[in-house]
C-alpha cells in the first residue's frame, strides 16, 4: 500500500486518476521549461508556464491533502512569482535549485506509479536561493 492506494481510499477514483495523469504530464515537462529559463527568448514564457504548473500542483495537492507536496509547491510558486516580477536575470543557483525541485517531483511521480510511500522532501530544497 502506497500513496496511490491511500488517495484512492480517500477520494473518488476518477479524481485521483485525473490528477495522476496531469501530474505526470506536468512533471515530464518541468525540466525542459527550467532549462528554457536560460534562453533569453524563452525566459518569460517559461517562467509563466512554470508558475502555472506549480500553482496547479499546489491547488490539486491541497485538495488531495498531500501536505508535503502542497507546501513545497507553495514555496516554489512564491519563488517563481518573485522571478516573474524581477528584472534581474535568473542565476545559476536558482536554476540548479529548480532542477533539484524537478527531481523531487519526478521521485514523487515514481511513488505514484509504483504505489510506494511518498518520499520525504529533501532538506536542501528548503534552502531557497537568492534570485538576485
Amino acid at each position: 500500500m502506497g500513496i496511490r492506494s491511500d488517495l484512492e481510499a480517500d477520494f473518488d477514483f476518477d479524481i485521483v486518476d485525473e490528477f495522476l495523469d496531469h501530474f505526470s504530464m506536468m512533471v515530464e515537462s518541468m525540466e525542459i521549461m527550467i532549462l528554457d529559463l536560460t534562453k533569453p527568448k524563452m525566459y518569460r514564457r517559461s517562467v509563466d508556464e512554470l508558475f502555472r504548473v506549480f500553482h496547479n500542483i499546489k491547488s490539486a495537492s491541497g485538495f488531495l491533502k498531500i501536505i508535503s507536496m502542497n507546501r513545497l509547491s507553495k514555496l516554489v510558486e512564491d519563488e517563481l512569482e518573485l522571478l516573474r516580477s524581477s528584472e534581474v536575470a535568473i542565476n545559476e543557483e536558482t536554476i540548479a535549485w529548480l532542477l533539484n525541485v524537478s527531481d523531487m517531483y519526478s521521485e514523487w511521480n515514481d511513488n505514484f506509479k509504483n504505489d510506494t510511500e511518498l518520499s520525504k522532501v529533501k532538506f536542501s530544497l528548503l534552502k531557497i536561493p537568492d534570485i538576485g
Partner: protein
Amino acid sequence: MAYITSGYPEKSFTVDLALALGESGVDTLELGVPFSDPVADGPLIEKANHKALEFGFKFEHLREISKEVAPKVDTLWMGYFNSFYQQDMAKLIPEAREYGVNGLIIPDLPHEEALLYKNLFESNNMANISFVAPTDSKQRIAEVVKEAQKFIYMVAYTGITGSGVSEDLQPFLKDIKEFTKTPVYVGFGVNKKTAKAKVEGADGVIVGSAFIDILLKDELNYSQKIKECSELAKILKSEIN
C-alpha cells in the same frame, strides 16, 4: 549547538577548535563526517566536506578526534547514513558510546528506517536525532516526535526573505510542541543576524555554515580561525540567551 566538519583542515585542528568552542559556551558539538554528496547541506559545508576528503579524512580520524573531545564537550556525530552503515552500525554505536559520543544525527535516514536501529541506540544509551521540516504534515510530525530523543532537529526555511512564504516559525513550533516535551532546536540559516529571531519559541539553535565560513577563509591562520569561531560562539550565546 555548533557543527564543524571533522578533519578540515586537519584532525588536530578539529580537536583544538572543538575544545575551544566548548570553552566559549557551545553546549553541544556536532562533529560532521565528511561526505562526497552531502545533500542536506549548503554550499559552504559541502566545500568543507570535499576539502576534508581531499586532505585525506578517514573515519578513523573521527574516532581519534572523538576520544579527545567527547569526554569534555557533549558530542554528537553528524553524517550521512552510508558513512555509518559502512562501519557496521552494530559495532559502531557501542564504540561511539565508549568514546563518550551521545548520539548520531543522520539527515538522510528516514524516520521509518531509523526505527530499525531503535533498540541498538536505546541499549547503548545513544540518541538518534529526529528531524522535522515545515513541509511535514501534523500527522507526520506527531509520528516522528513520538520517538524523539535528546532534542528534535527542526529544519527551517532559509533565504526566503521577500517571498510570500512566511519565515515565522511559530506555527510550526506550536505544531511540534503539541506532541512532545522534547526540546526543539532550530537549524539551517542560523547566524549572528538570525539567531535571536530563529530561537524564539525554540529551545536552541544549531549553527553550522557560519562557523564553516570562518574555517574556509584562507587568509586566516589556525589560531585566528579558532579565535574568530570562539568569538562567534560567544556572540551567538549572548544573542539567544
